[in-house]
């Protein structure tokens, strides 16, 4: 028996190339198996198994850091150094989310193991998403991520605000997927139309579509398709004018899920956007450039202005996240000027990851039985009660605000340099205004934690600040705070990586 065609097909499917994704999937399944076979008393250790398993995968991934470019699965996926960086990024995010969940889920009356299971599946899907070089692959991976997030957002389903957030995310997510899909279909259709030069049947492949677009740089249907694809992605990253879901969903979702949405989901959207803008839509710079420029300016202004008057910290961090999306869009809009802008996007994402998880960690520790009502006034006098949490919060918020010498400053510096080289002077003016506005609300939060001695901290919050969270989370937070400082002063290999040296 001999199946040459099958063997040929199999030769194009190097399964070992996606071992991190596969092992994450296996780990996810293992968690479910453990829940059924282990006695009830031993099930408490399952989240720890998840975290340790992920740490193991991370260690192997870092030890075999592969910086080669390799096309796998007949062009569905592309391994690249940036893809490797993002694999690490998503794995680190999911580890942090698992740590946050391990500290925050107990006592909320929801199943725990399934949460960790879904986080792992979502992380694996995100890894595939950023490596995909084919629209089918991209859409399937994206939907895996999104469906997982639908469940996670409404996880604490006894809380009406969480349910509302889940519904909103479901409707908005479905709408954005529809837009994206419609855009893909338009692009596929027009690329196959017989009357056009360079028509191709391989339009689902990024390479094929890119060649077609290069041959027809002013096709109206293709332009409409591109705008729809960009709109679908704008939903994912929470960019203007598709940011309306952000505050409600961020507030209603359980805090670990908010962190996952804010960091990993947004980063995945940006990397896909980056790949599409640089590799596929390059011939439509005339269209993509202005669209991104407008989106960046409007996103920065909207996010910062809307965050000014927020008192709920989850809404505040959500809207400030919108403004960060604007800053990253600024870098994406500048990628025409060479690899530095791409490096700036990655560095910004990494700095944002570290700072965000530091803040989300503090929020997790302080959040009460109702996760969705965390007000700025809850933070009054935090630094006196717990200098440690106050310090972590200050490092995280300072980095988000872009205050030197923290990592966020270096990130903003790289973005500004890239934008300057690309000649986006107007956008830079908007960005500077945005930074100054953002100082107001970040500083207001720090002020509540440090300077405010009028309203005393409530006894429950003081109790949580002193002892809540567990040792693992507290050590993680210390490491994150240290990382914001170190990465701001010494970028080391990461700096070389992002500056293309």
């Amino acid at each position, binding site marked *: 028996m001999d199946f040459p065609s099958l063997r040929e097909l199999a030769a194009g499917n190097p399964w070992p190339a996606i071992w991190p994704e596969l092992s994450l999937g296996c780990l996810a399944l293992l968690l479910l198996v453990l829940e059924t076979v282990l006695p009830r008393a031993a099930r408490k250790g399952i989240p720890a198994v998840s975290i340790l398993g992920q740490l193991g995968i991370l260690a192997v991934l870092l030890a075999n850091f592969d910086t080669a470019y390799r096309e796998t699965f007949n062009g569905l996926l592309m391994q690249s150094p940036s893809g490797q960086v993002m694999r690490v990024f998503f794995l680190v995010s999911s580890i942090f989310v698992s740590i946050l969940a391990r500290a925050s889920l107990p006592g909320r009356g929801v199943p725990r193991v399934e949460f960790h299971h879904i986080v792992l599946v979502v992380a694996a899907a995100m890894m595939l998403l950023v490596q995909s070089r084919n629209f089918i692959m991209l859409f399937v991976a994206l939907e895996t991520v999104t469906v997982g997030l639908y469940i996670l957002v409404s996880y604490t389903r006894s809380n009406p605000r969480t349910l509302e957030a889940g519904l909103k995310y479901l409707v908005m997510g479905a709408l954005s997927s529809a837009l994206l899909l419609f855009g893909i279909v338009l692009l596929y259709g027009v690329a196959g139309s017989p009357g056009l030069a360079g028509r191709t049947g391989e339009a689902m492949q990024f390479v094929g579509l890119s060649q077609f677009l290069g041959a027809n740089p002013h096709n109206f249907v293709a332009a409409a398709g591109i705008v729809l694809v960009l709109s679908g992605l704008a939903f994912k990253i929470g960019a203007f004018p598709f940011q309306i879901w952000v505050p409600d969903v961020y507030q209603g979702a359980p805090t670990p899920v908010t962190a996952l949405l804010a960091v990993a989901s947004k980063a995945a959207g940006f990397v896909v956007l980056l790949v599409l803008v640089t590799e596929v839509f390059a011939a439509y710079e005339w269209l993509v450039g202005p669209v991104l420029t407008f989106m960046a300016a409007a996103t920065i202004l909207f996010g910062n202005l809307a965050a000014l008057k927020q008192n709920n910290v989850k809404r505040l961090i959500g809207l400030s996240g919108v403004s960060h999306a604007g800053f990253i869009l600024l870098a994406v809009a500048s990628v025409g000027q060479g690899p530095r802008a791409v490096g700036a996007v990655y560095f910004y994402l990494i700095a944002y990851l570290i700072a965000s998880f530091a803040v989300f960690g503090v929020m997790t520790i302080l959040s009460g039985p109702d996760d969705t009502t965390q007000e700025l006034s809850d933070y009054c006098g935090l630094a006196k009660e717990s200098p440690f949490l106050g*310090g972590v919060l200050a490092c995280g918020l300072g980095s988000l605000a872009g205050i030197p010498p923290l990592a966020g400053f270096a990130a903003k510096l790289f973005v500004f340099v890239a934008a*300057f080289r690309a000649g986006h002077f107007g956008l830079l003016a908007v960005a500077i205004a945005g930074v100054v506005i953002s100082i107001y609300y970040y500083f207001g939060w720090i002020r509540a934690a440090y*300077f405010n001695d009028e309203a005393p901290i409530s006894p429950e919050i003081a109790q949580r600040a002193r002892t809540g969270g567990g040792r693992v989370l507290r050590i993680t937070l210390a490491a994150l705070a240290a990382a914001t400082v170190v990465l701001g002063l010494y970028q*080391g290999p990461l700096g070389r990586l992002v500056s293309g040296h």
Partner: protein
Amino acid sequence: MSNLSLDPLLLAVAAPLSLAVAIVLGLPKRWVMKLAYAGFAVPALTALWAWWSFGDAAKESHGYAFLSSYSTGLDGFGIGLKLGLNGISLPLFVLAGIVGLAAGLYAIQSGAERMKTYLALLLVMQAGLMGMFASVDVAFFYLFHEMALIPTFIMVGIWGGRDRSYAAMTMTIYLTLGAMLSLLGLIAIYAKSGASSFDLMALRDTLASSPLGEVTQKHIYGLLLFGFGILVSLWPFHSWAPLGYGAAPSSAAMLHAGVLKKFGLYGLVQIALPILPLGALHWSHGLAVLAAVGNVVVIGLVTMAQRDLKQMVGYSSVMHMGYAFLGIAAGSVLGAGGVVMLMVGHGLSVALLFLLSTSIHRRVHTFDMDQMGGLAPRAPVLAALFLVATFASIGLPGFANFWGELPIFFALWSFSHALTVVALTGTVISAVYGLRAVAKVFFGRPSASFTRLCATQPPPDIGWSEKLPALVLVAAMVFIGLWPRSLSTGIDRALAGEPAAVVANR
């Protein structure tokens, strides 16, 4: 040329910074109080050493000595920690060391609440200040500035006096705006120069052979002028300064008004004037009018109207920045050199004034000058020191400020006769408010509340713990006042042959 031997400039940054880190990591309090002396003394001693040996040290291009560089992984962006001093940065490095020592000594004995955190923040600030003036790399110059700036906000917010929350917020927003604008200007220089480096020496070499176009220079200089201007309280962007200084704890006010605020002026003299001479020429008239009319005359009159002693010192510092801007606007070697001398003189005298204001407050429990009077017989040493500080601040010969203001007026005369006359009225104004403050606080009839206070707990004269930091500052002022050449030789060498000089002479 990174090597393993001890780099004094790096030591001046690393010593206070590592002590601050140690405090954060939980150094016990008795150790903190002892080691804090070292944390402030090491930078000061380094500064004195650099001052002493600068004349004989080997110089590289643009007159830089003591050069060393370290990679931080950003070579791809042209950013690296590069330390060195030239004739312009040396005086400010010395200023930072001396004022830092005085502020540190004053803080150690101040008995503030949460002393460990207070000292840690001051040490971070001190590290930032030393690094700021020692940086040859523009990106690190900015980064060190922010490193010193952020603790100021926190110190105002926690240890500040009245309206501290509002003052901290106002300061933060104003100064962030200023810092952001100047950052944009610095990035613009980097991006437009084509040097692919933030290293000031490389930037200047590149731009010497291929200068920027006139329009570009105008735009970038405008960005830098207003960015730095906000940071230096250029009228009408000054309102954060008296508010912030009025609320700031004394050591923070000393370091900010004395040293940190000089960042903007230093940036203009060291970076903007040599690199963007045409831009400087374009903006010089507008700047001169703003500074002469706004900072010197308007703020001078506002200063005269102050009743609050600390606010008055804050406003007077805004006013004296006007002279510095006039020196920059004059666009000559004489003017720029005067600015550097004035920065040193003003830094020392305003730090001394803030220190003494707090000492006065400790004795009379108010900053309201109408509530004071007749303190001189009870605290003669304090009175003498305050008189010295006031004389220095007015710009009498024999103090460092004189050697700053005199060249500026000469340079300004050849720039514009009318503005010189306007600016000269400022010396009269500052004499009026300075001497009136002395009279109100120390002489005249004691107020009713002060008499009551004297009856219950008579205020002592200042002891050594307060006298020592004050004497450090007085000694430096008098030394430079009597021997200005110890700094001016280096300044002249660094400024001579600059493009700014060429522009001014054409």
